[in-house]
């Protein structure tokens, strides 16, 4: 019998235990609700949809509401009703696990009125067991791991005759440590730079119980997110893994104090400690930053027979590289390399998943840069979009230089053609189908490039003065009136088709949005299509117009 349970029954003005338990659950639910957004922001596993905090809050609140509706004569009755309520309200993966955990707790509490420290530890263990049982394929680094860690923390403290609050605080500490470790257990968390959302939710629930028992108020503003899942960063940081160290040694006579004592000394060196053997031969296994410490220990106690030290970080990196290489083979697909000039165009291609190489009109990219871009690509098939007539040759040379993947050039002659080609490519699609789709899409696009003459010349025997507007329609310079409205009409008439579904004006360095807007009005009425205006940022051509 602990202090808490004895004082609760002996104090004359004591509130019935069942009512206190309900208050504690309600307080914890409120505490959890204040952390809903912070937990949502962590959610990447198993589906990154940002609602773990909400699901847990709704589930626990449903449990509290359920517990309010029954007669609350015993603690077990409250837990039973809470478990039933949570079960009814359980939402999402994490909510279902929480409901099952509560059910495990309630079943183990059957027939009990009050809960003391040791019973609390038992209940948490029963809850963790039930949670594991609920999941067909338990994954570590999740709420399950945290539930078990909390139960372990509670059990350790209960053995030392801890009262209820002590035991719950130990459970919370166990949960907290386990939450911090979840990124080590689950790669997706590490990649996203977060701890496990469900595990954190369980920790918050335990924390709420502790704070309430300590008499603290749950009122306050919502907790802002401390971490936010970054789903774009799939880079592993170089963790300090240490060395997997194994030493086989023959203990000297009299130096062998027993394996248990030796385990203690090895444990001070690192983790994953194993000490096995007998009086004649002992093997130590430890993951440590200090392999020489393990060797020294063995040398001190006897004669080293054999030793092995492996750098686990390098092992891990090799494993990762192998896994990545395997993934590449397993997940075939098509990557894109686009050669583009102008910040706007480069951003558009990057937004379409292309690796972008700077280059284009009067700025040929180096073949080596294109090769490097091809080799950066993720998939085993690569399509190169030169996006300019003068770049096609360099793209073909680069494609021929790469031998460890299949590389093909889609001979796009303008950036609008390249955009159409990129849009037609499905990353998961077959290479041949993608190449065909990209070529067909590029052919459906017509391009008008508008620029001003930099010196006097003549087009089709018509004189062109410096500063006059010139239109290049699908690569062919056409003669026309020197002012833009007349010239654009001429350019549209030079196109093979007279009606289109979409026109896009890409505004270059020498163009203005206002002029683009008036051009847009002319084009829209000329071809009967909606007009989009995009920043292209290209040099030389004030406007590049695509019609498709």
């Amino acid at each position, binding site marked *: 019998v602990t202090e808490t349970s004895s004082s609760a029954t002996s104090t004359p003005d004591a509130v019935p235990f069942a009512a206190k338990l309900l208050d504690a659950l309600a307080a914890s639910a409120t505490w959890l609700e204040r952390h809903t957004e912070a937990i949502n922001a962590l959610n990447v596993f198993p589906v990154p949809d940002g609602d773990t905090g909400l699901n847990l809050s709704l589930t626990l609140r449903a449990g509290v509401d359920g517990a309010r509706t029954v007669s609350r004569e015993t603690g077990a009755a409250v837990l039973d009703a809470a478990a039933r309520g949570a079960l009814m309200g359980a939402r999402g993966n994490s909510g*279902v696990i929480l409901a099952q955990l509560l059910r495990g707790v309630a079943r183990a509490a059957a027939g009990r009125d009050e809960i003391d420290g040791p019973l609390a530890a038992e209940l948490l263990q029963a809850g963790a067991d039930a949670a594991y049982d609920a999941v067909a394929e338990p994954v570590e680094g999740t709420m399950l791991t945290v539930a078990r860690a909390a139960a372990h923390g509670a059990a350790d403290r209960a053995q030392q005759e801890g009262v209820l609050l002590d035991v719950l605080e130990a459970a919370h500490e166990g949960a907290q440590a386990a939450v911090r470790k979840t990124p080590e257990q689950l790669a997706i968390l590490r990649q996203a730079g977060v701890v496990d959302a469900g595990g954190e939710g369980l920790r918050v629930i335990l924390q709420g119980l502790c704070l309430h028992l300590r008499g603290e108020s749950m009122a306050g503003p919502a907790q802002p997110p401390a971490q936010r899942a970054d789903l774009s960063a799939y880079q592993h940081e170089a963790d300090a893994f240490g060395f997997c160290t194994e030493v086989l040694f023959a203990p000297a006579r009299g130096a062998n104090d027993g394996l248990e004592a030796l385990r203690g000394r090895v444990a001070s060196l690192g983790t994953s400690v194993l000490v096995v053997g007998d009086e004649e031969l002992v093997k130590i296994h430890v993951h440590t930053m200090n392999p020489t410490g393990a060797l020294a220990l063995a040398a001190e106690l006897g004669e080293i027979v054999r030793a092995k030290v492996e750098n686990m970080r390098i092992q891990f990196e090799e494993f990762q590289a192998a896994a990545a290489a395997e993934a590449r083979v397993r997940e075939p697909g098509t990557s894109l390399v686009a050669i583009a000039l102008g910040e706007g165009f480069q951003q558009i291609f990057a937004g379409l998943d292309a690796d972008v190489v700077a280059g284009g009109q009067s700025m040929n990219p180096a073949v080596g840069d294109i090769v490097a871009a091809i080799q950066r690509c993720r998939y085993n098939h690569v399509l190169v979009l030169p996006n300019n007539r003068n770049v096609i040759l360099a793209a073909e040379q680069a494609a021929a230089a790469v031998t460890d993947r299949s590389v093909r050039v889609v001979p796009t002659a303008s950036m609008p053609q390249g955009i159409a080609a990129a849009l037609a490519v499905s990353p998961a699609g077959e290479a041949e189908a993608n190449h065909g789709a990209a070529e067909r899409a590029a052919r459906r696009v017509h391009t008008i490039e508008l620029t001003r003459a930099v010196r006097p010349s003549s087009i089709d025997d018509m004189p062109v003065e410096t500063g006059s507007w010139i239109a290049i329609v699908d690569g062919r310079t056409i003669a026309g009136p020197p002012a833009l409205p007349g010239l654009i009409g001429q350019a549209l008439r030079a196109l093979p088709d007279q009606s289109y579904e979409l026109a896009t004006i890409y505004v270059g360095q020498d163009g203005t949005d206002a002029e683009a807007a008036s051009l847009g009005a002319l084009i829209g009425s000329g071809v009967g299509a909606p007009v989009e205006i995009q920043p292209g940022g290209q040099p030389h051509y004030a406007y590049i117009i695509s019609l498709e």
Partner: protein
Amino acid sequence: VTTVPQVAVVTDSTADFATAAPADLGLTVVPLTVNWGKDVLRDGVDIAARELYARLRHDPNIPHTAAPPLGIFEDLYHDLLQRHDFILSIHISSLLSATSSVAMTAARNVDAERVQVLDSTTTSVGLGWLVELAAELAAGGASAEAIRAEIEGLIPRLRLYLTLDTLEYLRRGGRIGRAQAFVGGLLNVKPILQLAEGAVIPVERVRARPPSLRRLAEIAGDVSAARSVAIVHGDCPDDAAVLRGQLIGADHRVPIVETGAILATHTGPGLLGVGWIVGS
């Protein structure tokens, strides 16, 4: 005289029905929920797609969809087992929703022998066709094993292609998966997506609405060879009618179905799709 079928068929509210109403088929439909601000709304009970679109226009909160609560499944299974020997519970792809997983937990808790949960790997009209067939077979007295075999044989023949008018809802809902990078970027892109092997897979990108409809029709090909065909839409009946006109081998008998609030939460208005069952 009506006899109670040996097998009860259960599905969820993401199933869209091309022809008959679920009640007429003897099906039990469990609603998923839309959590919106402080509201917890059951799909088709507390909120219909129409109300969802109206509220999307003015409510700054982002709605989240959630699987039905475990207790709902458990109570339903208990109840149905009073009158039926077996339950076949067929649900939305487990890659899109936790519904199958909740149903499986409930099945284990209630009676793992008598309640079978089937991950359909599809949703919408695809799921509708599967459960429609299951209900017909059950009404005819088929065993659970026989129904399950028929359904599993039909799954590989389902096709569902979709386009969206806006990507905003898909982006913020987080369930876009592999299509994430596909629809990123600066251009106003209309993606063509496929539901295959349980997941939303990007097919291609089109830069305007009219060609996206035409692409759907091209991908579908001649639908007169299909065993069933349907057009599904979210708040765009006019586009659905245009698409039906473009489908080769289709006529006015091809049903146009409006999807429920769950799919609509993830796609917003302007969802348009064509689904069919490859003919034998």
